[in-house]
C-alpha cells in the first residue's frame, strides 16, 4: 500500500477531506491527535481501497482553541473516533451529532491523553467511594 502524508491548515481541512472523499478515499481508517508542547496535531488516516493508497492528513491545532470541523458528514465512521479524541484530548468537533465522552464517565474532569494531565488528581482510594 502506498503511503503519503499531507499537512494542511485547519481552515483547509474540511475541503481537503471532501476532496479526498470524492477522489475515491472511501475507507475511513482513523483520526487521532498528538499533544505537542505548543500545539495539537490532528492525524487522519484515509484509505483508497481502489488504488491501495493510504493518506495521512496532519493538521496542527492551536491549544487556545482546540476546535476542528467534524467529518461525520463525509465518513460516518468518524463518529466514534471523534468522540474518542474529544474524550481523551478535549478537542471539540464542530458539527458532530453527539459530542459526548466515549470511554470516560461524563462527570470526569480533564482529558487524560494531554501531556499536562495529572493522574494523581483522579487517583482515588477505595474508601473514597463509600
Amino acid at each position, binding site marked *: *500500500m502506498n*503511503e503519503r502524508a499531507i499537512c494542511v491548515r485547519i481552515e483547509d481541512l474540511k475541503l481537503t477531506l471532501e476532496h479526498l472523499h470524492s477522489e475515491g478515499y*472511501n*475507507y*475511513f*481508517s*482513523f483520526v*487521532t491527535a*498528538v*499533544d505537542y508542547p505548543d500545539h495539537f496535531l490532528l*492525524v487522519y*488516516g484515509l484509505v483508497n*481501497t481502489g488504488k*491501495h493508497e*493510504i493518506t*495521512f492528513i496532519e493538521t496542527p491545532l492551536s491549544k487556545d482553541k482546540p476546535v476542528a470541523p467534524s467529518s461525520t458528514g463525509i*465518513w*460516518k*465512521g468518524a*463518529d*466514534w*473516533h471523534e468522540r474518542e479524541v474529544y474524550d*481523551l484530548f478535549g478537542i471539540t468537533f464542530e458539527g458532530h451529532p453527539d459530542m459526548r*465522552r*466515549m*470511554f*470516560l*464517565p461524563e462527570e470526569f474532569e480533564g482529558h*487524560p*491523553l494531554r501531556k499536562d*494531565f495529572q*493522574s494523581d488528581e483522579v487517583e482515588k482510594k477505595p474508601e473514597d467511594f463509600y
Partner: protein
Amino acid sequence: MVEKQEFMINMGPQHPSTHGVFRIVLELDGETVIGAKPEIGYLHRGVEKISENRTYEQVLPLTDRLDYVNAMGNNLAYVMAVEKLAGIQVSERAQAIRTILAELNRIASHLISIGTQGLEVGAYTVFLYCFREREIILDLFERATGGRLTYTYFRFGGLFQDLPEGWVEEARDFCKEFLPHVDEYEDLLIQNPIYKLRTKGIGILNKNIALNYGASGPVLRSTGVSWDLRKDSPYLMYDQVEFDVVYTKNGDVWDRAWIRLEEMRQSTRIIKQLLDNLPEGEVQAEELCRYVVPEERSSYFAVESPRGELGFFLVSDGSLKPYRMKIRSPAFVNLSLVETLVKGEKVADVPLIIGSLDPVFGEVDR
C-alpha cells in the same frame, strides 16, 4: 384510554451474552428494536496513556491485553509498527514463524467467535467443540512461548527464542486433524437449518455503509468487498503463500460466520505451506541493542487481525518511550455499526448481531 409507550430495556453491562462489559440501551416496540444506544468504556484502562510512560519494550506486554483472544496478533502489529518506526530488519525464519503463529491465533480467535455464535442461538455444543480445538492451539503456544493467553513472544528484530524441538511436527499434526473438525462445525452449526433461519437476512450491512464506517475484517468482507491487508498490503510472508481472500455478498450474520469458518480453512492452508518450507537461520537480529530508540518521526502500521485492520500509530520524539501511541482497533470501529444494524431487528437477534461483529472489549475500550 390506552397509552402507547416504548419499552426501554437495558442490555448489559452485566448480561450473559454481550461479549464482555458492553451496554446497549434498546428501545423496543414489542419484540422489535426501534432504537439502540450503545455505551462502551467499562473496560477502559488507558493503555495509550500508560504506554507513554514506558519504554517500547515495556509496552509490548500491554498489547497482549488488548485483544486477549488474539494476543499474538496484537504483539505482531505492535512489534512490526515499532520495527517500521525504527527501521529494524527481521530474519526470514522469524518472519515465517511469526506468520504461522499469527495464523494459529487467527484460528483460535475465529473458533471462539463461531462457538459464541452457537451460544447466542442456544446451541451449546459447538462452543465446546470449538474450545476443544482451541485447547490444542493453546498447547502449541504454550510449548513455544510459555504462555497460554498472553504470549509476548515477538521481539523487535525477531522472536524471544526459536521454536522448541518437535513443534513443527506437532503443528503439522494439528493442521491434519483440524480440517475435519471445521467440517464438523459447518455441519453442526453453520449449515443447520434452524441456524440459517435465525441468521440469514439478519443484521444486513451494505458495502457503502461498511466502507463509510471503516469496518474491516470479516464484517467488511461479508458485504462483497475483497479487502484483506494480508493480500492488499502484504507483510510478513503473506505474499509468498497461496491463500484466498474469503468474501461474500449478502452482508448478514450468517455470511460473517461463514467467512470466519472458511478463513480457518485458509489459515490452515497458509500454516501448512509455511511449515513445509520453514527457512533455516537465526530468529533474533544479532545487532539488536537492549533498547530501541527510534528517530524523531511517526509511522503507522496495520495488520489484518481476525477482527480486521489492527493498526498502531506511533509518534517518536527520539527518546526511549513512545511520545504517542494510537491503537486503531478494528473491534472499536466494527462495534460502532451496531446501532445501525440492530434497528428494525428482533430483540432475540441483538446478541447475534453483536456477536457477529465479534467485539473483544479489551480492544474496544483499550
